[in-house]
């Protein structure tokens, strides 16, 4: 149900409007296996008042993606930090503003890690994901929670909603000793419900090669194993949606590849994680007014162990961390006439944190908590002649406290979105947004280096862009879409943790200032001829993100770490009768692993080519899909994070059966 916002009425552009992550009826149904696949919905380009990219079920299914991070890599302006393998941490950073400036929403509710501000996208499988959408600035919806406005960019991961009663079993296997059985059941009656369980096991072993100095190194990655069980349940009833999530895992942390005499002191570090959350939402439209309520409760447990009896070279560490997140939100929008609307939202959040960590290498305080209050007001005006204006003001009040040390932050941050549509096929748009991120518990209460008088990290973003689309007469069913953006942003008081004169002395300081400018270009083409259809999407990003912290530093004006000047992707998709094939190509240009842009710190450009071939079968009442994925087909040796080599060519096979 598209809620009655100005946006949905006004900004509809041909094929599809902006994706509403919490819309109650989703259009796609992954349980329906169509005889002929439709590539037209694969292309990730849609038009909206803010720059956004979305990937729907079809695309996600067609890509050889195991987790959300694998899929989101193809979005322009996105940098995924990937430590490699199925168990390696994968975080998202949008337009070089930093991981903590990117909000990640799962089924409409923000995931919060108050300890370090990072969300591991590797923990979200793609099997039952309906869509993944990235919005820069914020969604141009009037009815949304205040948390939706509180990041520089937001990624929305939305699960498939049940549309029929069915049972599906799947099994994936292949490289790294991967065994990945899954079970998925849906029910549609007066209520709609789904239960989803997936087990992932991998030994994480893969060959990698390095080229350094005069050497070529070929070795095997070890201690990258993972065992994870994810169980989810959803219930939809009238205007209510409930969701439960349980994740339990044990993994090895392989550590960086460094010089060693033998492998006996290679990392044997272990980590255990357990996450459980329940969330619910309610939406209601009453004439010109729409109402929204959301709530969520999360508990996280993490244990990190370095055991000197298993690896004599390490410091003994047996750290346990517990986090809780209690969240409520209420929002309303009001749209009395077509050309005017307003929205209000109020969010409350409490984050608790406990730790047994004794060593500063990973320690925060024993107990800490954070209270967050957010209030947002929005106003949208559509005066006609193709114009749309939307402004929002967000108040954030945050209080962190631990052992009598309180750190308080109050900020008012505005955002303005302007869109102009001079013709049916063309939209011009711009936005300006100010936003900040509060220091995390680690930043503030790091036993050794934390300091309660840290300032929040502040960001200003300016963006202008255009979307254009047209039919292509010379191609049967041909369509072309273009989207282009230029942007400029600035980060102040970047919070940086630096190691001190001994390994025990760290300090967390407000250090950095970063100036970023960039341009993004996305092109989508699609065509359909009888039983076959094709689509291709290409994206390219140019970015220049420079450190302007200290004018006297010899590294002043250096490119910040891990920000490539050029990056891009091409995803091509073809479907013919029951077959479908996707080919995807990802490129990351030269970048530096440090603000000192020396030759030694330069990281080689890399590209990967992936192929995925699928066949949809039907056998009586059974139907399903057979998939073969070839990843890194050309066996490129590359690193996303320095000294964390990524896997070479590898294959995965998947079979699903549905009844």
């Amino acid at each position, binding site marked *: 149900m598209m809620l009655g916002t100005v946006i949905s009425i006004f900004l509809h552009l041909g094929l599809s409007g902006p994706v509403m992550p919490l819309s109650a009826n989703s259009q796609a149904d992954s349980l329906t296996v169509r005889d002929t696949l439709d590539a037209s919905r694969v292309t990730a380009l849609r038009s909206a008042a803010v720059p956004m990219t979305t990937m729907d079920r079809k695309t996600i299914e067609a890509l050889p993606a195991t987790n959300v991070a694998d899929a989101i890599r193809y979005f322009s302006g996105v940098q995924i930090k990937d430590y490699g393998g199925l168990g390696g941490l994968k975080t998202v950073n949008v337009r070089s503003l930093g991981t903590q400036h990117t909000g990640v929403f799962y089924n409409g509710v923000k995931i919060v890690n108050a300890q370090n501000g990072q969300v591991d996208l590797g923990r979200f499988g793609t099997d039952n994901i309906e869509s993944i959408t990235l919005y820069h600035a914020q969604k141009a919806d009037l009815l949304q929670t205040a948390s939706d406005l509180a990041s520089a960019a937001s990624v929305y991961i939305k699960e498939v909603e049940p549309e029929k009663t069915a049972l599906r079993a799947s099994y994936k296997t292949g490289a790294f000793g991967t065994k990945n059985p899954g079970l998925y059941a849906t029910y549609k009656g007066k209520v709609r419900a789904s239960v989803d369980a997936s087990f992932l096991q991998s030994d994480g072993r893969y060959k990698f090669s390095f080229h350094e100095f005069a050497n070529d190194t070929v070795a095997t990655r070890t201690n990258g194993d993972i065992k994870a069980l994810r169980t989810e349940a959803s219930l939809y009833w009238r205007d209510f949606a409930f969701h439960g999530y349980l994740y339990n895992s044990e993994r090895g942390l392989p550590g960086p590849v*460094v010089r060693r005499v033998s492998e006996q002191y290679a990392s044997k570090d272990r980590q255990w994680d357990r996450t459980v959350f329940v969330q619910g939402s309610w939406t209601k439209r009453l004439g010109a007014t729409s109402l929204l309520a959301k709530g969520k409760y999360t508990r996280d447990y993490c244990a990190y162990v370095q055991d000197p009896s298993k690896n004599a070279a390490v410091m003994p560490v047996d750290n346990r961390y517990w986090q809780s997140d209690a969240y409520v939100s209420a929002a309303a929008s009001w749209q009395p006439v077509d050309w005017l609307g307003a929205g209000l939202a109020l969010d409350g959040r409490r984050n608790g944190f406990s730790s047994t960590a004794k060593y500063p290498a990973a320690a925060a305080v024993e107990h800490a908590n954070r209270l967050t209050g957010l209030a947002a007001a929005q106003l949208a005006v559509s005066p006609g002649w193709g114009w749309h204006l939307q402004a929002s003001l967000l108040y954030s009040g945050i209080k962190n406290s631990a052992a009598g040390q309180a750190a308080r932050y109050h900020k008012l941050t505005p955002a303005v979105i302007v869109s102009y549509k001079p013709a049916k096929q063309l939209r011009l748009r711009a936005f300006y947004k100010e936003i900040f991120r509060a220091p995390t518990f680690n930043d503030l209460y790091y036993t050794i280096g934390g300091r309660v008088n840290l300032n929040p990290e502040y960001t200003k973003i300016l963006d202008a862009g255009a979307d254009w689309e047209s039919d292509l007469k010379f191609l049967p069913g041909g369509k072309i879409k273009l989207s282009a953006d230029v942007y400029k942003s600035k980060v102040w008081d970047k919070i940086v943790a630096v190691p001190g*004169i001994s390994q*025990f002395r760290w300090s967390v300081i407000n250090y950095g200032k970063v100036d970023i400018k960039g341009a993004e270009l996305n092109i989508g083409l699609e065509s359909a001829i009888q039983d076959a259809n094709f689509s291709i999407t290409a994206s390219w990003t140019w970015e220049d993100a420079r450190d302007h912290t200290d004018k006297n530093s010899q590294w002043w004006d250096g490119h910040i770490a891990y920000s490539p000047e050029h990056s891009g992707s091409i995803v091509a998709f073809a479907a013919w009768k029951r077959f479908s094939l996707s080919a995807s190509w990802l490129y990351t240009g030269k970048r530096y692993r440090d603000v000192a842009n020396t030759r030694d710190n330069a990281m080689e450009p890399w590209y990967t080519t992936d192929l995925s071939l699928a066949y949809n079968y039907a056998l009586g009442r059974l139907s399903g899909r057979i998939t073969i994925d070839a990843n890194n087909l050309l066996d490129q040796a590359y690193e996303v994070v320095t000294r964390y080599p990524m896997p070479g060519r590898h294959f995965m096979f998947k079979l699903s059966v549905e009844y």
Partner: protein
Amino acid sequence: MALFAAMASCRKSDIDPELVTDQQIIELDETATEFTINYKTNVSSVTVIPIVEWIKVNSLTPTSVTLLLQANESLEDRKGEIQFLYEKELLARVVVTQKGKVPAEPELKGFYFLNEGQWGKNNATLGYYDFSASSYKDEWWSSINPSVRDGLGDVGNDVAVSGDWLLAVINSSNLLEICNRDGVHIAAVEIPNCRMVKIEGDIAYVTSYADEGYVAKVDLNERKVVATCKTGHEPEGLAIIGKTMYVLNSCGYHTDFTGGGNNEEASISIIDLESFSEVEKSMLGIYNAYSPLTVLPDGKTFFINSSGDYNAVKPTSILFDTTEKKVTRNFGFGGAFADVFDGKLYIFDTSFSYTTFEWENSNCVYDPVSGSISDFPVDEEEFESYGAPTGIWIDQTNGDIYIADKGNYTSPAFLYRYDKTGTQVAKINVGVCPGHLAWDWR
């Protein structure tokens, strides 16, 4: 690619390449124009490299090599070396010298400088500063040893030079890098969580945090650990006086940084070198002794730093008398770095205060004879432009003071040189996290 890996490992384990020469040192006559070295080896082919330009290989057989001397070479400089290699691995060396040449008084030629690099980035560098050229080359070691797999390694923690040995302790790579004085890689000996090194003849002693703390005795010719001696927890600095070795047990892992007060007291293990066993442990009454053992000019007193627990226990520094085996002075201020010059101890310490959130300097000069403390020659204001000052080394020939700055800890930083009056005379570009220096006397 998998096939190549299998072949490589097969070759390495099946053959242990060996080479024995008929002489280790060749003394040249003034009239000599060529010489021959006979050798025995179990490998099919060897490469012979004269590492000086005035020697050329004339003929090479499976059992001997004949070398020619360039005629126009000055006899004074006839000091060189012949290396025998198999697949880039050094099998043997023959030293070439001028017959009857009297060794000159050692002269300070320069210094070796170890940059720790950033943890996990495998970017420790060993550079060399050449006084005659007034230039520093950070990629000095890596340019000499381009074929050492994965370079110098991850987190350099100490460097030492003595005799013909140049050693570097690479902590996170868990190894002791053994080179000759010219920086040519000879071997790497695996020692988990290794910290600091001292060389005594052809033996190196290396402290290690592993197995609750020990000192490894490394035979540099045999290139392996030949004995270990248990110490206290987290041994850091070590010193040898006569037949006794002293090891400072920092108890760094046994310090309670949460402020809970469960701190284990640091101590000194007194080790008899002949039996290589601990004979006594002296308690120091300090915590987290993250420090080398700096020997005062009297040859029997150590200056030791304590970093405290960053909570109630503040940093301090002490003097420990090895004859009385007790602490003789507690200064009440930190002394993370120190060096001796002209009979005095130059103490350099900047510690971060978690109450004021500022760096606090306690730099001074201590006179062990009078017991007085005077001002540090370099003005405090000088350090305001530093990111994080670390380390002090004094040139014994002229009193020049070298102080390193780690900058932002991730980027290549600077080594500052001051004359003895405290005036800055040079700012040298070094590597990431500069930290350790060894003087090159020859």
